[in-house]
């Protein structure tokens, strides 16, 4: 196996994002780092199947996502209460001081089904397009869109963000908010 500098650089450059994705999926830094390490080893072993010039981050995210899913399936067979495990793993990390800020969000994320959680993170935080996220998750673009929507709605509900559209779109408010965002 030979690793040219550019490929090596692309892999390293993706690591911070892979970690962020893995931590969002597992809720556990140690498990996440193991997952990223396993992803790197898997990628290096199969580097010949990576086509230079194509999307390296998407390729690596796909590997990580599939590793997580197969590990999770195994785990789920062993432990019925996987959500409980996830919640426990959150509690066991008091040292992550800076991350306490996002505790409410983490707990809310832990309550989402896997498919919704990965979709909302890939599109909403990693910055992948719906098309890229669909390729990573191996599903249709429409499926990703609806998962992202459901995830956002559920997160709003769990985090008590008052955001249900009772009166339909208020064009003026929307225009103001859009302007503020782009400013």
């Amino acid at each position, binding site marked *: *196996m*030979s*690793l040219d500098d550019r490929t*090596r650089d*692309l*892999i*390293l*450059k*993706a*690591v*911070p*994002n892979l*970690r*962020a994705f893995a*931590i*969002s999926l597992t809720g556990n830094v140690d498990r996440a*780092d193991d997952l990223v*390490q396993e992803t*790197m*080893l898997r990628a*290096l072993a199969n580097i010949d199947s990576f086509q230079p010039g194509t*999307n*390296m*981050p*998407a390729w690596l995210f796909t590997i990580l996502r599939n590793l997580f899913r197969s590990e999770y399936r195994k785990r789920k067979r062993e432990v019925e209460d996987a959500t409980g495990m996830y919640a426990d793993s959150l509690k066991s990390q008091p040292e992550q001081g800076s*991350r306490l*800020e*996002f505790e409410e*969000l*983490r707990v809310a994320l832990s309550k989402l089904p896997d498919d919704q959680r990965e979709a*909302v*993170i890939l*599109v*909403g*935080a*990693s*910055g*992948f*397009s*719906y098309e*890229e996220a669909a390729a990573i998750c191996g599903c249709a673009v429409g499926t990703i*869109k609806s998962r*992202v*929507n459901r995830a*956002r*709605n559920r*997160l*709003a509900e769990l*985090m008590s*963000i*008052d*955001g*249900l*559209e009772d009166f339909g*779109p208020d064009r003026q*408010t*929307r225009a103001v*908010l*859009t302007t503020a*965002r782009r400013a």
Partner: protein
Amino acid sequence: MARKPEKPEGPMQRERHSEPGESAGLTREATVKIGQQLRAMYDEVVKEGVPDRFTEILNRLDKGDSEKDRGHES
């Protein structure tokens, strides 16, 4: 003619794609709020950069390879 990209390609370097207005059933304000929190949480980890263990894996493999190559040559 293919133009040389100024920056390496990849979603992380690009503008984020989430379009807050698209969530059916939620106000734009709520969708924006959720998006901001997700990104803030995510970026907190991204800011930590590449922990040594990951650089070391690549270094070790590179080293292992060159030693193996030398072995083949001798």
